[in-house]
């Protein structure tokens, strides 16, 4: 069985569309996971018990079960209680929250590692607890976790393929569709691997840029 890439170009449009969706999901879910991660981390560390306990249970649910299952429940389960989300939105929320919980773990550790003197320095100036956390602690904690969070973003990009379970035609599913028509799996999988790699390179370049900017203020 030799490789025959001549079938690929006729599916170019489909793959490109899939790639567009993959990028869109990754960006939206990436942003959600970033800010969600901060919110979860702050809630887990500073919120009163009554919020912290359910938060911890929520985090454990998301850490403990496969993303596939979470997406399924968000899309097919929530509608049964009257919350009707479009597939794309459900996908973004599922992916976003899943990785927000991961990011929150990183940010929590890094918040705890911010020098206690920073907190005292700010409080001494008269800033309130909330102001101190928002303006002094969080900005420093987030900077410190950009590299490991980059790891998560790259994982998120790849896991966006799971959104196909709720019928979103992203890159991997687009390729599988093309395969189920043409029966040319290797050609398409290689093409798709290349597409992911390409997005990944852009992502890595972006991360390096952010890291350099942050390094400038160190």
């Amino acid at each position, binding site marked *: 069985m030799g490789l025959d890439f001549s079938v690929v170009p006729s599916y170019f449009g489909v793959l490109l569309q899939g790639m567009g969706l993959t990028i869109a999901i990754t960006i939206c879910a990436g942003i959600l996971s970033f800010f969600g991660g901060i919110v979860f981390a702050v809630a887990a560390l500073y919120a009163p018990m009554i919020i912290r306990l359910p938060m911890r249970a929520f985090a454990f649910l998301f850490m403990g079960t496969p993303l596939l299952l979470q997406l399924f429940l968000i899309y097919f389960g929530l509608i049964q209680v009257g919350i009707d989300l479009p597939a794309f939105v459900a996908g973004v929320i599922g992916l976003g929250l899943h990785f927000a919980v991961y990011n929150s773990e990183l940010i929590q550790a890094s918040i705890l590692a911010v020098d206690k003197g920073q907190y005292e320095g700010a409080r001494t100036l*008269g800033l309130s607890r909330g102001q101190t956390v928002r303006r002094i602690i969080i900005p420093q904690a987030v900077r410190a976790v950009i590299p490991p969070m980059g790891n998560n973003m790259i994982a998120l990009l790849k896991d966006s393929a799971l959104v196909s379970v709720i019928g979103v035609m992203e890159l991997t599913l687009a390729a599988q569709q093309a395969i189920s028509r043409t029966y040319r799996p290797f050609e398409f999988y290689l093409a798709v691997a290349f597409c992911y790699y390409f997005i990944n390179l852009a992502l890595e370049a972006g991360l390096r840029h952010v890291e350099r900017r942050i390094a400038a203020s160190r």
Partner: protein
Amino acid sequence: MTTSFVKIKNAAKSFGNLQVLKDINLTVDRGQIVAIIGPSGSGKSTLLRAINELDPLTSGEVWLEGVQINRHLPPRQYEAHVNQVRQDIGMVFQHFNLFPHLTVRGNITLAPRMLKGLTEAQANALVEEQLTKVGLLEKIDEYPSRLSGGQKQRVAIARALAMKPKVMLFDEATSALDPELVEEVNMVMKQLADEHMTMIIVTHEMDFAASVCDRVLFMDQGVVVEEGPPSVIFQNPVEERTRNFLRKHLARNGG
């Protein structure tokens, strides 16, 4: 006219079973400069941190300008009250505690802008005023990581001054500095003394204390062992413990 501006009455403080402060009394008049000296672990930092409620006292009272700082209030009101009085108390730490993610300008303007609602123009005027005072105007847009230790500490002082505090607390402001850099910070503190800023200074530099302070407290094991003008404390201390402490210091500093 001397009013007792800062007043500490029967202050006591324990961490668990460890009693760190035991019945401390201290009054500081407006414009006065008080130095606190004493061996490591004697409770100097704890006392300063009690004044602005970073480590609230176990018992006793702290007053600033006729207002009691360590009042018992419901949590929300206490928060607001504490944030308010802290704005009147500038504090400078041994390790500067500059905010690494903000420039010098950002460090200095953060609190005034958030708490006093200064406009950008007002804030800029304020930074320039304070930086000129500490002689660092040219570093206005640098990040702290690019400053030397002495410069960092001067920025920390400017940051505290920008809130126009009524009293300044210094906790070993120079002891993390390389020896050459100490002088520039001491200069700034001397200048504040000339401007009659009320100050409480914890320090290991006896000579500096002697040259700027109105009064010196020697603390050991949580009590004030001896208190008086620098000439008395440094030249003719009454207490044996004070003499011992000073002897050690002088031995090291080439007496």
